[in-house]
């Protein structure tokens, strides 16, 4: 009897294991399929795409397609210049990442380490504004920026990165659980001033939290289409970010090199895909952490 039951226990889940695994593999294929087809199509010439539609076999026209894309920028056919786009998106994304992580860390540190009268209200405020969507403030933001002449300027895209309530929330939770306040006391006794303690002791100890938030901040900024297209309202090519350039491909009806279109889209996602596969484990863990702590 016991043996039979045991056997049942072992053999029954096996069918389920296979079914579940198969289902997951199918989902993974679906998740990757659009990206795979993008890469395949970026390597096909336009005639081939028109004649055959969807195909799963890569061809040899990738370099030609990229050349066409680079020519667009030279001839001014469409405002898509990948190298300029990389540069602009990188300037904005790196600056935002640096400011977000540094100042959110500092704010969280201030709220966790020090006791002051307005500490409670300050933190409640940060929690309360965490959910305010950008869309709600954007009319007032845009009107304000155009009034003080800061449209077509990177500053309104970079400076607001200092105030990131959600990142502060995450960092505070992290500090509460893994930053012993005794260390601050010890540093004081050793004669370290408060800022030095923050930079040379707290930041190194908070590295994991800083790293996760830095990756998320970078990706969010790189992918942002809403704010840059609003602030860089004149669409000057030398200022445009990559997502804006992608949009300009879409709104140009005269582009008939479909293969090159795919190549252009592929070039626009290449950096984030690389970042993702380098840090993927880290990122997935970060999302899970956010789920518990948010």
């Amino acid at each position: 009897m016991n043996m039979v039951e045991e056997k049942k226990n072992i053999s029954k889940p096996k069918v389920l294991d296979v079914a579940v695994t198969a289902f997951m593999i199918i989902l993974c294929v679906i998740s990757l399929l659009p990206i795979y087809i993008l890469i395949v199509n970026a390597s096909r010439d336009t005639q081939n795409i028109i004649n055959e539609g969807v195909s799963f076999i890569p061809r040899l026209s990738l370099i030609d397609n990229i050349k066409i894309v680079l020519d667009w920028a030279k001839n001014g056919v469409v405002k898509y210049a990948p190298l300029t786009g990389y540069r602009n998106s990188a300037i904005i994304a790196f600056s935002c990442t640096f400011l977000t992580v540094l100042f959110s860390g500092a704010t969280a540190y201030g709220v966790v380490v020090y006791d002051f009268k307005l500490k409670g209200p300050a933190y409640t405020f940060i929690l309360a504004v965490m959910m305010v969507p950008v869309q709600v403030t954007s009319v007032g933001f845009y009107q304000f920026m155009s009034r003080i002449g800061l449209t077509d300027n990177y500053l309104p895209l970079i400076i607001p990165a200092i105030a990131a309530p959600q990142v502060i929330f995450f960092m505070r939770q992290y500090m509460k659980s893994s930053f012993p306040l005794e260390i601050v006391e010890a540093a004081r006794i050793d004669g370290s001033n408060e800022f030095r303690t923050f930079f040379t002791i707290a930041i190194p100890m908070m590295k994991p939290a800083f790293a996760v938030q830095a990756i998320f901040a970078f990706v969010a900024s790189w992918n942002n289409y809403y704010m840059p297209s609003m602030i860089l309202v004149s669409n000057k090519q030398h200022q445009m970010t990559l997502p804006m350039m992608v949009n300009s491909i879409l709104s140009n009806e005269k582009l008939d090199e479909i293969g090159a279109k795919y190549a252009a889209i592929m070039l626009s996602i290449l950096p984030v895909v690389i970042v993702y596969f380098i840090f993927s484990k880290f990122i997935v863990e970060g999302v899970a952490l956010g789920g518990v702590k948010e």
Partner: protein
Amino acid sequence: MANRSGGRIRSISYAKYGYIFILPFFLVYVVFQLYPLFNTFYLSFFGNGSTKEEWVGLSNYQRLLFGGADRVASSVHETFLRVLGNTFVLWVGNFIPQIILSLVLAAWFTNARLKIPGKGAYKIIMYMPNIITAASSAALFVTLFGDSKFGAVNAMLINNGIIDALHPIQFVSGPTQARIMIMIIQTWMWYGNTTIMLMSGIMGINGSLFEAASIDGASHTQQFFKITLPLLKPILLYTVVTSMIGGLQMFDIPALYNNGTSQNSATETIAVYIYDNFLNANLSNYGNAASASVILFMITSILGSICFAINRDKDVKHKKSKKTSKLL
């Protein structure tokens, strides 16, 4: 606890550093977020286009919410109702498949009795669409599902004789087709994220509950409905509310998944409506855009306070359990 009250006496002289550390956040927040928010409220009392300098009181709200006798007012009202409806339809249409799929996946991923090889890799692949630039995803799908017979998917369907070449499917311009496509893209983008969030919720449930249940002879399905789901309620509610707030802001995909020259009226969301109204040089309808923003703000505030309550509840519980564990 004793440690903390001791610390307070010692740290009195350090209080000013607390202010110094949080000052940059508050300065920037006030200038770049809080003031623009008030400015939005302020602008909502002014006119549109050529009358944008004129004080019009509450008439923008009146037109948006209730329409009016003249044709302009009633068309503004109709458009607003339409974009609200679109936003809701698109959110529901991507949230329902997403939450069902994510719940099932999360239950499977966390089930220790299932032997699934390569779990880590699946999670990484399923999350990937979320990291890809939304603008590029929209561009990719628009190009793949182009309306003409040269669109890759239409060409494939024609080649296989599923549809005839004279009537390619209007994946991008067709109202229902475009809505379904956007729901699919949004689901594709977000299900991995939701799965991971729910997984960490399930892993937070005390494992001994499952053990006890399986000793008592509860099946997988019974455990899922009797233990996992009820205990997951706060996280589920949280996911619903945050997803709703996110859904209200849905912009990139609906704004870019169209034929490139004009917005598909069946997929214009409230965020797209606001953006078009204030940014479009021919319109510069600050009044309309600002009052729509204020209405959006009201809705999100209500949803946000629900979230806030859930969060605080968790925080309080967390503190309590920490205290008791210290006492023990």
